């Protein structure tokens, strides 16, 4: 670990490809144990910076340290301490039973056979992969393969787990299981997480901090709530009422967003800082019969789009 204890540290990190600047003076640091969502459009510079963090790509200029090490000069040591999952690329041996991939990776990381088996058993148990151990990797479903990739990346108990699009193409249930596992892994081992994703559910469930990259630059660094706050995104309370009701215009702290079906369904926008769902609901149900309600969280895709628009104007 570096002197100041950061597990990732970049300062004025720059990477040029011929004429384009893929990463532009990026500066951020991640402390051990954090879970950081790394989001941005395709080509924003996410993968390029991950490649610089892991020693695959040489920075054009600037400073980068992973686990306190220079990934270019100490790639092998970085590889011992970091686990990486590239969503679109496999770490596994497609033509052998899954079990063999774990055995090979154990040998690559110089774990002895007992340690490999113990760690494999634990991960397989947590990820519920037991029945697939004898299946050739090429026959696994996408969800199964992804879980196997994550187990493979965690086999050597890394301090930092970097996930590049871990949930891409997964069905709802597979996503859910994967997220639950990652939450548990963090809780048990304090593994630091850096994940890129297009799925805002991943960020909401897994990350306490968000980095937004746009055109190679860091456009935002803070909490998810802060991200929503910056661009004024608000939560929406959707009320299904028993009877067609006139527009709910007099609710304190909330404003009517839209009314459907002659007032049977009404959407109220409210600021979480100013009021609570309970207060809004109490106010409305004291006057009208409420049959059902849902809360729509800020659409983070939309928030990110607004961040882009703002950073482009600047």
């Amino acid at each position, binding site marked *: 670990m570096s002197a100041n204890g950061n597990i990732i540290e970049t300062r004025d990190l720059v990477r040029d490809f011929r004429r384009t600047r893929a990463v532009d003076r990026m500066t951020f640091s991640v402390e051990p144990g954090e879970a950081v969502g790394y989001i941005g459009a395709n080509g924003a510079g996410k993968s390029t910076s991950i*490649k610089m963090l892991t020693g*695959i790509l040489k920075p054009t200029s600037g400073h980068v340290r992973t686990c306190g090490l220079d990934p*270019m000069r100490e790639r092998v040591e970085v590889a011992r301490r970091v686990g990486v999952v590239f969503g679109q690329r496999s770490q596994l041996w497609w033509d*052998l039973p899954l079990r063999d991939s774990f055995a090979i990776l154990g040998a690559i990381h110089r774990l002895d056979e007992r340690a490999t088996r113990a760690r494999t058993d634990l991960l397989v148990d947590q990820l519920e992969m037991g029945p697939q151990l004898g299946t050739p990797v090429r026959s696994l479903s996408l969800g199964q393969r992804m879980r196997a990739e994550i187990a493979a990346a965690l086999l050597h108990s890394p301090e930092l787990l970097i996930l590049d699009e871990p949930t891409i193409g997964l069905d709802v249930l597979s996503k859910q299981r994967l997220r639950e596992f990652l939450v548990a892994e963090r809780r048990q081992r304090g593994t630091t997480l850096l994940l890129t994703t297009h799925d805002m559910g991943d960020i909401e469930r897994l990350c306490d901090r968000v980095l937004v990259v746009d055109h190679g630059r860091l456009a935002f660094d803070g909490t998810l709530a802060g991200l929503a706050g910056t661009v004024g995104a608000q939560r929406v309370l959707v009320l299904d009422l028993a009877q067609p009701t006139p527009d709910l215009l007099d609710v304190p702290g909330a404003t009517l967003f839209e009314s459907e079906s002659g007032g049977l369904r009404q959407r109220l926008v409210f600021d979480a800082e100013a009021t609570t769902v309970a207060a809004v609901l109490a106010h409305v149900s004291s006057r009208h019969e409420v049959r059902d309600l849902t809360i729509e969280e800020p659409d983070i895709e939309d928030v990110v789009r607004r961040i882009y628009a703002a950073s482009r104007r600047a």
Partner: protein
Amino acid sequence: MVEVSEVSEVSRWASRCALRERLRPYRVLLASRARAQMQYRASFVTDILGTVGVGLAEFAEVWVIFHNVTVLGGLDFTAALLVFALSNIAFALADMFVGHLDQLPRYIRAGQVDAFYVRPLPLLAQLMTSDLSLRRVGRLSVALVALVVALSTAHIAWSAATVGLVALTVLSGTAIFSALFTAAGGLQFFLVDGAELTNSFTYGGSYAAQQSQQVFPGPLRIFWTFVVPTAFVAYIPAVAILDLPDSLAPYWLAWCTPLAALLAWVVAGLCWRLGTRHYQGAGG
């Protein structure tokens, strides 16, 4: 005294264990490659038959030539058979262990190279052990048969030195072809679809190694000796083993094959370094 020898014994044992441990990942990787090929037994057998066919086709060329002439480039049939055998053994062995290095663009496209970068082993060692083309034993076995026939029918003044020379030749020849594949792999980092170019000195080198060097005009002979040193794979040692006259290939030169292999590896290492630097510069 006893204690000292015991200590050195123990330390030797310890260092042997350390080496075993260092090599364990590669042993496991190669074993897994072998296992994977055995899983498709029918296709494995077909593949072996295929490479036997390649070996026989290569041999047919020698046979056809000597059906029409008795001597070519100073070699008679037996001598040509020895050159054929030595070069084919070396090529088949190198092809079996590192022949997939010239498939690098495929590895890059599949993202496999990035996966290698995030594993704690040297990149070249990982690539070398990422495949083991056992099907090449087909071509290897044709060449081994040719070697036995050539050595037993030729009039050779056998001595310990001759036996040593044969063994050394096979080792150096394999190392030379492996270096060519490695250099080809390194260059593939630059060249998009560069296989055509690099094939010219891997497969081209293999073809040149099978020939009597006397058939080549001067500049070409210099090229195959000093630039792509395939003359050292078979012809130069064969001349010494069979005690043939060639003023340009004195017998002592046959003992220089390790030197040629070493130089080939220096160049291969540079090509590889250049290639990986370029990759880290250009991105996948």
